[in-house]
């Protein structure tokens, strides 16, 4: 479909352009377009946030209810019924440091996958860089994450476990996790337009992924022969690193952090490429 004639299409001033073959300069132009439209990204994020809680009595407090309930139930099941040993930190705290980044990842992926399909009335009317839709969906989840972090602060106060200076690693770790999340969400959001099965696949995959990530249990109890497999799971790398810097007061394992960074950057590059490649067909598929 991308024949030679289309590739010659001139990029005209004043109108964002779609329908070109992707080369490195196109990437740069895409990113420049995205930067140019950052206000739209911001407005879309605010729109999601305001819309999300506008009709509810508890409002933004809903962002706290779900993680709080999860934490209480899981703590009861896995520290009272099934006793999982978490040396160095009480189970509730240990769990929540893993649950927060996981929830961010999982809600971002679900919301991001639906973001383009959900904006179908816009996608068929006006052009704007479509990656704004999944990106805004993920930004919304960043806001939810910040709210839910209040619970973590509360837990730390309750257990008298103040983080030390290694807490400064958290923003960097989160940035790496954000890149990975965005990189995975972009192609899924695009594919969801072509096959509506994708959203269901994402739901199933997330459920399985949750158990294969050390959230409910420490990575140390995983038998050695499976450790490599866990090291290839970026979420496992991220969550272990968060626990190290927040609970064990150690710097992250740099080897693993760079591995996580490498996987994240590669995922984002491939994901963004695939997204832009599919973008010209979006309006045809709605």
């Amino acid at each position, binding site marked *: *479909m991308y*024949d030679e*004639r*289309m590739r*010659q*299409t*001139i990029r*005209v*001033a*004043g*109108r*964002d*352009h*779609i*329908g070109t073959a992707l080369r490195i300069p196109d990437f740069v132009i895409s990113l420049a377009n995205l930067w140019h*439209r950052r*206000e*739209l990204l911001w*407005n*879309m994020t605010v*729109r999601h946030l*305001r*819309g999300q809680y*506008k*009709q509810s009595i508890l409002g933004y407090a809903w962002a706290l209810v779900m993680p709080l309930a999860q934490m209480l139930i899981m703590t009861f099941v896995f520290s009272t019924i099934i006793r999982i040993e978490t040396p160095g930190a009480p189970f509730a705290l240990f769990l929540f440091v893993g649950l927060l980044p996981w929830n961010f990842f999982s809600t971002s992926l679900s919301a991001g996958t639906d973001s383009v399909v959900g904006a179908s*009335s*816009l*996608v*068929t*009317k*006006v*052009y*704007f860089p479509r990656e704004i839709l999944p990106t805004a969906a993920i930004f919304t989840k960043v806001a939810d994450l910040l709210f839910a972090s209040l619970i973590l602060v509360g837990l730390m106060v309750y257990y008298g476990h103040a983080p030390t200076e290694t807490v400064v690693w958290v923003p960097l770790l989160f940035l790496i996790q954000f890149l990975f999340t965005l990189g995975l969400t972009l192609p899924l959001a695009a594919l969801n337009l072509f*096959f*509506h*099965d994708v959203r269901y696949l994402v739901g199933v995959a997330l459920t399985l992924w949750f158990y294969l990530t050390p959230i409910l249990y420490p990575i140390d109890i995983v038998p050695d022969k499976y450790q490599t497999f866990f090291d290839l799971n970026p979420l496992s790398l991220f969550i272990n690193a968060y626990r190290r810097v927040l609970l064990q007061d150690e710097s992250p394992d740099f080897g693993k952090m760079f591995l996580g960074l490498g996987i994240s950057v590669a995922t984002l590059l491939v994901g963004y490429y695939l997204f832009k490649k599919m973008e*010209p*067909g*979006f*309006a*045809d598929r709605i």
Partner: protein
Amino acid sequence: MPTASDSVAIEFRNVSKRFMLEEGRSLREFIPALLKGTGWSDPFYALQDVSFTIRQGESVGIVGRNGSGKSTTLKLIAGVMAPSEGEVHVHGRVSPLIELGAGFHPDLTGRENVYLNASILGMSGKAIRGKFDDIVDFAELWDFMDTPVKRYSSGMYMRLGFSVAVHSDPDILLVDEVLAVGDALFSEKCLAKIREFQKKGVTIVIVSHSPDTTKNFCGRAVLLDHGCLVEEGRAHSVIEHYWQLVHREEVGATASSQSVTAVPGSLPNQ
């Protein structure tokens, strides 16, 4: 009438647009089709080898019966679709007056939606703040700016959408059957606004089923039938031709002899 300059605003060069008719949408249908080596459905040509040029400051009407490819043409100009073959060149900022208020979020207030919709159309926050009063004035909705738009009547909804779009300072305005926004009074106001744009040298593309609108606003028109360009030229003679097509259809004869596509019926998403 303003004089059209020589610079090109919109150019279609041998543009074709193919659609796959809606059939296979799940993997259940796609994977067997892939294994058999067949596509998932037969292609349908919404536009076939269409070429025309619109110069800056011109007002051009696109006429044709249902399913002739008018809306597809607008979508190609708006940049939401890419051509399957050929090239589409558009110079300048496009503001689509297509189904107004498409980007409105029902739970947000009128004010919040003005900001959101204007930024979707490419306005900066500063520009929106500068024009906010004009937008609300034009829409005559001062009392409802803090009301969620889901409480709006459909007329109010459209008025706000129209108002945002015309204040987005477009170089090219795409108008699709929205001239009947709201009551007669507001409708007059919209038409006056479009005249004002014409005077300012904004390029205007109008898709309308009403030949009168086209004749009133456009010097030139393009006639499409079954995805093919049948005639391009002075609005009056193109409209004549359009009537002939419609008439011939009524008489029961087959569609225009110029139309090459054999696929009957209209496009599903038009």
